[in-house]
């Protein structure tokens, strides 16, 4: 526990440093909401206050709608079966179903919560609009079959955003796999959606605080990946290591499943990134090629490290590299060029490799499936790296008027730091509450026998 505190403190400190650092370049406009840059508005914000756009009545475009329906489906495939398999293949066979189940049910529960209050809190205006939306669209009240968001039906937009809210908590599963109580997990993630995901989502994409700083997070570097990575780290430390960690063989029980999962995540990520453009337009094309080459470069980056370090490139390395590259390009995909995307994917993957091997070993936490090492770390690299690579000289789209590489970098660093602290502190508090009330760690006996039979009454494989 003490160790936990010190670790969390460290993360927090780092984040404050990031924010502090950013002050240097941005003087005292940190919480100044009058700052009108709002780069994010181009991508998401105009959807929310659809009323404002009455001058130019929004009309439905079938091409954009077709694309967004698919993009949504692709993000669903990322979660189930993609993420579930990516994670499931990495655990021991006695816990396979528990991981599949955690992802599957989390995904389902969050979907329902999104309709009940999630969408409303994230994407409508509220009395504390810097931090969170209102409850005006709870139960999707006010959304009708005719509502249009930009050029697509609002229901499509709602569903697309639903998948993000359902995927992000599921990502955290990798941090506490093989040792968590199923009911405790559901309670924790419900609270986490409400107090971490929805506010950060609103702050970044719903017209709240972070967007007002001019931060760029095209498809969810902070909202999705850093958020999930930090929460996973907090839980991994809080729950403690798995029994036998570092002593017994805990090799992945089915690497082909992990490879399938990684491939489906790769394919689905186009829904995630290109879908965030909310249209099938030219920017979509740029996002697409960037996503592809960043993933490919991520594969090459990770296996290069492995090759140098141990002489053998591995399938798990290839898969991990692809995901690292994809995570890194997520916030950056609409502002860098293809060569910048290659550089970002390659580099982020190498840094994630270092985080999953050296950093994890030296700090000694058991983040079962490296959610922090991959999503957290590559997410940070992407979020701050884009400030550099978006420069025209690196093939990027360039900066807004009045914005420099330095100032953009500061804004990015600040938004990353803010997200880490918000997520870290609240996740820790939620962990404590749920651990004491519902209970989060299974008994030693159940952990030995495996969660499949003890929590779910099933076995993954019979003959």
């Amino acid at each position: 526990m003490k160790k936990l505190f010190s670790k969390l403190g460290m993360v927090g400190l780092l984040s404050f440093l990031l924010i502090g650092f950013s002050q240097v370049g941005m003087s005292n406009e940190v919480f100044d909401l009058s700052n009108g840059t709002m780069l994010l508005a181009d991508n998401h914000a105009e959807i929310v206050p659809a009323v404002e756009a009455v001058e130019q009545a929004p009309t439905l475009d079938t091409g954009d709608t077709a694309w967004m329906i698919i993009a949504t489906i692709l993000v669903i495939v990322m979660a189930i079966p993609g993420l579930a398999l990516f994670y499931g293949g990495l655990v021991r066979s006695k816990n396979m179903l528990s991981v599949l189940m955690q992802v599957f049910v989390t995904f389902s529960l969050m979907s329902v919560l999104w309709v009940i209050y999630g969408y409303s809190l994230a994407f409508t205006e509220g009395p504390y609009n810097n931090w969170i939306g209102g409850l005006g669209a709870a139960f999707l009240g006010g959304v009708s079959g005719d509502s249009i968001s930009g050029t697509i039906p609002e229901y499509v937009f709602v569903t697309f955003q639903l998948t993000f809210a359902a995927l992000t908590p599921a990502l955290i599963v990798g941090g506490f796999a093989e040792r968590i109580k199923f009911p405790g997990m559901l309670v924790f993630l419900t609270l986490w959606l409400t107090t971490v995901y929805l506010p950060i989502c609103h702050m970044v994409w719903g017209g709240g605080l972070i967007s007002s700083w001019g931060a760029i997070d095209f498809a969810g570097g902070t909202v999705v990946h850093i958020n999930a990575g930090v929460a996973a780290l907090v839980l991994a430390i809080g729950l403690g290591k798995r029994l036998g960690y570092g002593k017994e063989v805990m090799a992945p029980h089915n690497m082909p499943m992990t490879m399938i999962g990684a491939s489906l995540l790769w394919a689905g990520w186009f829904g995630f990134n290109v879908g965030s453009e909310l249209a099938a337009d030219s920017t979509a094309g740029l996002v697409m090629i960037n996503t592809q080459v960043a993933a490919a470069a991520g594969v090459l980056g990770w296996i290069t490290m492995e090759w140098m370090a141990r002489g053998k490139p591995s399938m798990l390395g290839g898969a991990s590299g692809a995901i690292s590259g994809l995570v890194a390009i997520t916030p950056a995909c609409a502002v860098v060029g293809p060569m910048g995307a290659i550089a970002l994917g390659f580099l982020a993957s190498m840094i994630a490799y270092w985080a999953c091997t050296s950093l994890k070993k030296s700090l000694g936490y058991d983040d079962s499936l490296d959610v922090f090492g991959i999503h957290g770390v590559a997410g940070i690299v992407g979020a701050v790296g884009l400030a550099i690579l978006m420069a025209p000289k690196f093939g990027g789209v360039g900066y807004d008027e009045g914005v420099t590489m330095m100032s953009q970098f500061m804004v990015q660093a600040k938004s990353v730091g803010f997200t880490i602290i918000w997520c870290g502190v609240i996740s820790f508090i939620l962990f404590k509450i749920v651990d004491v009330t519902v209970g989060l760690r299974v008994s030693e006996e159940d952990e030995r026998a495996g969660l499949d039979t003890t929590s779910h009454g099933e076995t993954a494989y019979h003959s």
Partner: protein
Amino acid sequence: MKFITAVIKPFKLDEVREALSEIGVQGITVTEVKGFGRQKGHTELYRGAEYVIDFLPKVKLEVAVSEKLAKKVVETITKSALTGKIGDGKIFVMDLDQVQRIRTGETGDDAL
């Protein structure tokens, strides 16, 4: 020579193997088995079809050792495989007539 068969809990395998190495055992053959015994299994339910799975995953070790090492081996396994909880397993000792190493054709204690 003796042919010693031990059934133990799977997660104890590494410990037992290391303990045996230390006392000079040079070869072990290991099989994944299912054990029925006093330790109870569990119930699985698939859409209403209930199956009582009353076997438990166990690991079986087979070790051929010289007469003089036999007692020590039984002791070592007993000690390193012990958790004190039901289902820790059994050790069976049988006479071994003859051994041969395929690679060299050596027989007897030399072949172990």
